[in-house]
Every structure is written in C-alpha cells, then in structure tokens.
C-alpha cells in the first residue's frame, strides 16, 4: 500500500505565474532549493538540499501538471503539482506518494490526532493524509475531515 500526503493551497495569482515559479529553474530555486531542473520529461536533476535530492521529471503538462520522482536517500516518492485556475487565482494541490515508510525514518513526534483526524481513503485503498489548517500560514487548506481534536 502507498501512503499519500496532500497539501492544498490557494494563491491569489494567475496560474501562469504559479506555473513559472514551479518550472523555471531560477524561480524554483528561490522558494524550494537550488537545482538543475529542466521542464523535459525524463530529465534527471538534483535539488541541492541537505541531503541532496535526486529527481527525474515524469510529467510536464503546461500550465497545470508537473510531476517528478524524489529520492532523498531515505524515501523514494513521487511529487505531483496540479494547478487549477479559480476565480480568486490558483488552487495548488501537492501530492507526495511514497511506498510504505521504513522504520528508521521515525523521528519527530507530533500528535496522534493528526493521524486520526486527517486520514481519508480513496477507492484504490490508498491512505491520504490532509495537512491541517494550523500547519499552513497564508493559505486555505481543503480539509474534508475536520473532526474534533480531543487528545488521547
């Protein structure tokens, strides 16, 4: 089974502007990480983070879909950005799909509530975790499961 994490954000900017920030190397470097990205399917590139992240472009459909693999040495996942034009600007859905996590990745501790409150399951049986509104700063978060957060 795969695990998916999704984030939904709304930006008050035209879709073309958001698309440029995702797919132009120098712009991408300014908000994400220094890189040698090119918008070509099959292009292999590296994000110069700590650690370095090895990636390969798997989908480019301007101006709405960008997907690339992501291997940071701990987990291999697929990163997918989907942009949808809205009346207020652009909705961005970021999906990270990973195989089942490995035990040695267990690090930081957060709350159990985050797991139970944010889990949904799609028809393929994959789990989706929706990031919580309190995790985000300027943007709205589409959260289909806003249950009560009682502590255990």
């Amino acid at each position, binding site marked *: 089974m795969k695990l998916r994490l999704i984030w939904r954000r709304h930006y008050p900017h035209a879709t073309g502007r958001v698309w440029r920030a995702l797919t132009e190397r120098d712009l991408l470097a300014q908000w994400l990480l220094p890189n040698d990205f090119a918008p070509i399917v099959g292009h292999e590139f590296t994000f110069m983070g700590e650690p370095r992240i090895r990636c390969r472009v798997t989908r480019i459909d301007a101006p709405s879909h960008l997907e690339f693999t992501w291997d940071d040495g701990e987990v291999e996942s697929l990163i997918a950005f989907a942009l949808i034009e809205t009346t207020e600007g652009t909705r961005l859905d970021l999906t990270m799909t990973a195989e*089942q996590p490995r035990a040695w990745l267990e690090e930081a501790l957060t709350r159990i509530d985050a797991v*139970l409150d944010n889990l949904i399951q799609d028809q393929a049986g994959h789990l989706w975790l929706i990031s919580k509104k309190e995790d985000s700063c300027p943007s709205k978060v589409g959260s289909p499961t806003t249950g009560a957060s009682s502590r255990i």
Partner: protein
Amino acid sequence: MGNVAAHADVFRAIADPTRRAVLERLRHGELSVSELAGPFRMSQPAISQHLRVLRHAGLVRVDKVGRQRLYALNPKPLREVDRWIAHYRRFWTRKLEDLGKFLDEME
C-alpha cells in the same frame, strides 16, 4: 522502535473506515464489543473480526474486567506512523508558504 512489518499491519488496520471509526470511538474510553457494535449496525462477530486486526497491529488492547472484556486504544503505533509523516509535513508546509511569499514578490 517498530519495524517495517509492524508498519504494514498498522496501515492495513487503519485503511478500513470501520476500523478507523472503532478507533475514533475508543478515544473516549474503554468499551465492550457490544458497546462498540451498537452504532455500526454490524454483528458482534463482524466487529470482533475488526478488533482482531486492530489488536494484531497493536492499536487496540484488551483488558479483562471481571467477566467482561474491555477494548482500549493503544496510540503508540499511530504515533510512530505520525513521526514518519511529520518530517515531510513540516518541509512541504514551509516550502508552500515560501512559494506564496515568492509569488507575491515575483516580477
């Protein structure tokens, strides 16, 4: 800490909506099988089957109180799953914030 197989059990256990509903109900305290079965319109054997999966994954434990068996939530395996997720949640949440600020300033 857990291992990969244990994680597989946890994910399988929480993939089912009924089992998640059982966990949700157990957040408020221990319950017997009949108390758990009540709101689900399921037979007690069906609920017992779900409880077996949850126990196997270590998410639920049984306390024997007199002749009654009470089921209680064990949150530790879920915490371990959440630990794994926390790193990536923090990273991308911060980056998407940075993207928002960058879009505001972009020429």
